[in-house]
């Protein structure tokens, strides 16, 4: 798609050599390159614009005579800024409840059901928790079966009720079941929904209100493009979610949506999905994500 940003910037910054300092005029072309690279990496157009303004402010007046490769100076500025925006230390989950309730949310096909399984497996094997998976997708064909297959794979019980069509009731009954049977984490899988689907957004708001989860997670496909900002904002407006899960990072997407989402909702990215298998879960590293977005 595009070359390494560093090489591109080296070319663009070449004109700066001999100018001594970075100025509004001589840095314009470079900033345009950065903006294009970010947009090509699926960073939202407006966010890429704001981001380059910030980088410009930091770059103005910097001495480029001493820098052997002006591109490197600029790349470092860009990378540091990206890493900072992406968040600091990896943030864990709040598991203080008894049981702790974790609610999944997100668009269709983003990876909620798969991630529910991965998280249950992670909490069971790495944190010695006793998780319960809950099937609250009453719409997608075979969604409940899918969660049962996943539960069987990892040896975690799945609570479901094919007769009950109200996810609020299912989740409440599941939490009662967890309390009565010594489960200390309850992971609630929900149906995929679009932010513009008012009825479905009301439904998840109702689940959220009824069960007051310790953690509400927004699961997003890392291949998402410009629309990531709309979706993240709409889900956050309704759920005020606690963290983001970025899935399918085993692909070769640049993952610029991560920056868009961080910027627009300012919530930490807590985990990433790196495969279809139950073990393919990892914590999120801001600096690795910055490298990835920049193609480095």
């Amino acid at each position: 798609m595009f070359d390494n940003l560093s090489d591109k910037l080296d070319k663009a910054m070449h004109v700066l050599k001999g100018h001594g300092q970075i100025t509004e005029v001589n840095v314009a072309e470079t900033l345009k390159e950065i903006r294009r690279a970010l947009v090509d990496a699926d960073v939202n157009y407006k966010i890429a614009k704001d981001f380059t303004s910030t980088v410009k402010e930091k770059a103005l007046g910097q001495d480029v005579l001493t820098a052997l490769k002006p591109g490197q100076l600029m790349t470092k500025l860009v990378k540091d800024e990206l890493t900072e925006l992406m968040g600091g230390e990896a943030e864990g989950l709040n598991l203080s409840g008894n049981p702790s309730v974790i609610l999944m949310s997100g668009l269709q096909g983003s990876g909620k059901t798969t991630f529910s399984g991965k998280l249950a497996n992670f909490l069971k094997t790495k944190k010695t928790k006793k998780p319960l998976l809950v099937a609250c997708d009453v719409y997608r064909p075979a969604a409940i079966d899918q969660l049962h297959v996943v539960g069987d794979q990892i040896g975690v019980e799945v609570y479901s009720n094919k007769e009950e069509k109200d996810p609020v009731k299912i989740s409440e009954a599941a939490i009662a079941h967890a309390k009565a049977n010594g489960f200390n984490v309850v992971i609630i899988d929900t149906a995929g929904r679009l932010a513009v689907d008012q009825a479905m957004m009301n439904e998840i708001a109702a689940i959220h209100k009824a069960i007051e989860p310790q953690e509400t997670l927004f699961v997003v496909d890392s291949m998402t493009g410009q629309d990531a900002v709309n979706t993240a904002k709409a889900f956050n407006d309704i759920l005020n979610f606690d963290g983001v899960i970025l899935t399918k990072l085993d692909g070769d997407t640049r993952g610029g949506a991560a920056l868009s989402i961080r910027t627009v909702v300012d919530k930490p990215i807590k985990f990433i999905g790196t495969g279809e298998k139950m073990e393919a879960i990892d914590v999120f590293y801001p600096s690795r994500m910055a490298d990835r977005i920049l193609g480095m």
Partner: protein
Amino acid sequence: AGKSKVDDEVLDNLEEILVSSDVGVATTIKIIDRIEERVARDKYLGTEELNTILREEIAGLMSETNFGDATDFSVPAKKPYVIMVVGVNGVGKTTTIGKLAYQFKKQGLNVVLGAGDTFRAAAIDQLQIWADRVDVPIVKQQMGSDPASVAFDTVQSAVKMDADVVIIDTAGRLHNKVNLMNELTKVKRVMQKVIDDAPDEVLLVLDGSTGQNAFEQAKQFTAATEVTSLAVTKLDGTAKGGVVIGISDQFQIPVKYIGVGEGIEDLQVFNKIEFVDSFFRV
């Protein structure tokens, strides 16, 4: 009073709309350059004309099917007409198959589905539910069985049943996984043991909310299976799916269908002009 040239503000605005619709930088520049050329030649008069030119230029970039733009869900009269459906994880392959089967069946065609996703949890059950909904037969094996063998069985049964259309589901796979892509090539090849030139169509399903990575998807799936058509799903949300313009242009693959919901009727035949118009709707 007419203007002889589009001002920068109009072009900036256009750039923002295209890029925000996931058209991508390169294709956006290509479109804007073409518009500037046209404007220089035709003499731009007003917004009306600009809009017309824009639609024409974008539509011009997009490849057509061999029969021109499709206007309905008809398939060529070749029996059985075999469609293999491919794409990355979670884009909407299985759902699109259900919706397509419904459309074909509605025309009185005999449809057979093949449960070629033997990997993902409950994938076979999911396709079975769609087959029941549409009331068409499904050919399936156990979870974990060889998808090529399922494809072979499906095409063979279809011939025996004298079916009109066969649609074969495959497991979602990321295009950078070499083994999985090779598996897909094999699935395709095996059908040719039954019918020389099967499949007649390889439909790549793209999620309308996907950004520039869709290019790489198109490239790799084409390399593995010679994709012949595209379906863009989930356009009932706020995502615009603009990346398919560049894909259709570069790989000369037509977009045939769009998915606009989860229901059985939520599939439409692709219409270039409506597609471009949607970018300008908020």
